[in-house]
């Protein structure tokens, strides 16, 4: 399964720059393509495309969402088990674990290092086995 780009694409390459796995290719100002073997279905391209040219796995046209309104992970640290499934899956390294020398906790609790790198994919919420992460619109 993979996202697809249709003819409305103007080749502005915004999506290409955002794609965390370099799955988008094509000439500037031409219709871009998504390599379906590389696409991880994070949906970032669909939200950023100014022309609504991107369609999801199910063939549904993606809606443009203002970047400041993208969903971001919210942690409930009291539920977090430090299993680090979220850190492992984060495709943009926006979730990190603290340096062991610097932490004052007795275990490693993930934190959002740079919220602007977050693409709002929600993989961390999906992978958290104990629902300690919820995605909320900022």
């Amino acid at each position, binding site marked *: 399964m993979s996202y697809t780009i249709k003819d409305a694409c103007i080749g502005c390459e915004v999506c290409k720059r955002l794609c965390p796995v*370099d799955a988008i290719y094509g000439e500037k100002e031409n219709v871009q393509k998504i390599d379906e073997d590389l696409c*991880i279905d994070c949906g970032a391209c669909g939200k950023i495309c100014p022309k609504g040219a991107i369609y999801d796995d199910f063939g549904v046209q993606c809606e443009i969402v203002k970047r400041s309104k993208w969903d971001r992970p919210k942690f409930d640290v009291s539920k977090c088990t430090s*299993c680090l499934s979220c850190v492992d899956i984060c495709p943009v390294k926006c979730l990190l674990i603290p340096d062991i020398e610097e932490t004052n*906790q007795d*275990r490693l609790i993930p934190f959002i290092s740079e919220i602007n790198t977050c693409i709002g994919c929600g993989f961390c919420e999906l992978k958290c*086995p104990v629902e300690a992460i919820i995605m909320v619109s900022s």
Partner: protein
Amino acid sequence: MAKGYMGKILVVDLSKNEFKEEIIPDDVYEKYLSGTGLGAYYLYHNMPANADPLGPDNYIGFMSGLLTGTGSLFTGRWMAVGKSPLTGTWGDANCGGNFSPAIKQCGYDGIFFKGISDKPVYLYIDAKTMELRDASDLWGIDAVDAEQLLIERYAKQGKTPRVATIGQSGEKCSLISGICNDRGRIAARSGLGAVMGSKKLKALVLLGNKPITPHNYDEMKKLSKMCNRWVNFQPPFVTGPATAYVGKLMRYLPHQLVMDGMLYKIFLRKWGTVSMNQLSVEIGDSPIKNWDGSSDDWPVSHSNIVNPDVFTDCEIVKYHCYSCPLGCGGICSMSGKYEETHKPEYETVICLGALCMNTDKDSIFYMNEMLNRAGMDTISAGHVLAFAIECYEKGIITKDDTDGIELTWGNTDAMIEMLQLMIDRKGIGDILADGVRVAAQKIGKGSEKFAIHAGGQEPAAHDGRADPGFALHYSVEATPGRHTIGAYLYYEMFQLWKRLKDLPAPKMLYHKDTKYTVDEEKIQMAAACSKYMNIINGAGACMFGAFLGITRMPLFDWLNAATGWNKSDEEIMQIGERIQTIKQDFNVKHGIEPKNNKVPLRTLGQPPQTRGSNKGRSVNLDKLMSEYWQFFGWNSETGKPSTETKRALGIE
């Protein structure tokens, strides 16, 4: 429809630099799960009989678990599989850290290697490339540094590379070497590091990002949250030194209470496996002085140097493997050449401590880090040292043989020097680096009776005289000498009878003497442990999670929710039985006589000890083994699976 597993494996021929993807049919997963089960299935069918373990025909497989990455807890372990050069039998070893999901994220349930490369290489896989790259610059570098170099080389925006690598021991084909990941965690047993070394395969660097999707995410998470509630129950408990006195009390009472794994979980969460250091010595579970001593030789005044609080005092932070809510591991600070080390495990502490009569705490930390970096098994290394010391003390080897090292009981400096010789394979270290069986064969002069091993594999630090289940599993498993499969104690903690009504429920309070009688109940318990551990290793789960009990760590329900199967508990247990039988038949196919894998009489209390907590205890191993084999439908004299049994289980 998503089923939790990836449905294919990768086979790399190192001789020809060829990559081949193989699709694994769904019914293979239904019969063998993934992980060790799939590995056993593949190697049983593809490895020629009598393949040289260090030759091109042997395979080394890196397997992920069926439940890894599916939203379950305690399921982040990966398994190395192959024919063991140490024992010549089926070999597997498993390890935690973050490597297991990385295998599946590359799109495979397992990555197998065959052939031999003509120069050192490592495998690199990311979403776009898959190739063998030159590892000449990494050859000779220890496992921790090599891993760090590779991570720095491939760290970029996005995922962190996950690396498994061998150290110098594996490169030099030491038969007691393992495979390391996550800064010195090690899949240590069965000597599979030597298989990697023989193939000139230094490391795997995995950077895939394929999604791992279970059949029913909601159900997986519902089960995980239930499981996590039990893990979070953590009342304040006794202090570290007090554990010794709990052990003393257990030792002098003639009766024993059924162990509930929740209690052990509380210990594990607070201290990790080192919580058992003193308690185990007191109840007779720890081998002392190369299995010849007793708890009287290692009294509380000795063991106090490794009381559990010693380890938490220098623990910087707890270490959790992937998807683990418990966190039994830790990163500890230490003085000297290395600043940090993974918290030594109980096995390491006893094998490098009590087994060699070493009472220097700092040296145990140092040797732990030294062995993790070299990629050598601490259990086997401790046994080899204890063997060499006993040979030296009995005059079988002398200062001339040891390059002047005075190998006496408790001589810490001598132990460290000898370990360095073993890692470098210099002098007598060259002989000792292949484990006690090979060392005894080469040294001769009656040293064989001090070589403690089962079929070549050194047993772990659990004494069969205190729990005969350990002696049985050391001797009867397809991977001999293994403490992570079964014991009467483990059966009590697994609580399988709560789901499988045919299995016997132990009495709440029982007399210790009853552990030494051989009856059908004992055999049922042992067989259930073997089957259950095969399922755990197929799912990529952790035994410490399973100690919570089958109703609290819902392994069977996770398996059904992840795959969309609707298997009954009995059907899942039959998968475990099938894996047990195919591993045993792998051994038979490769010319192993199962009855030769018995642990030596010294470890069985024959003759019984005259003092200490195992005074007067002896284990009737022959009867236990014979009845265990018969229970599985194997020949009760030879331990070989019958054609009818194999046919009934669908093993072709």
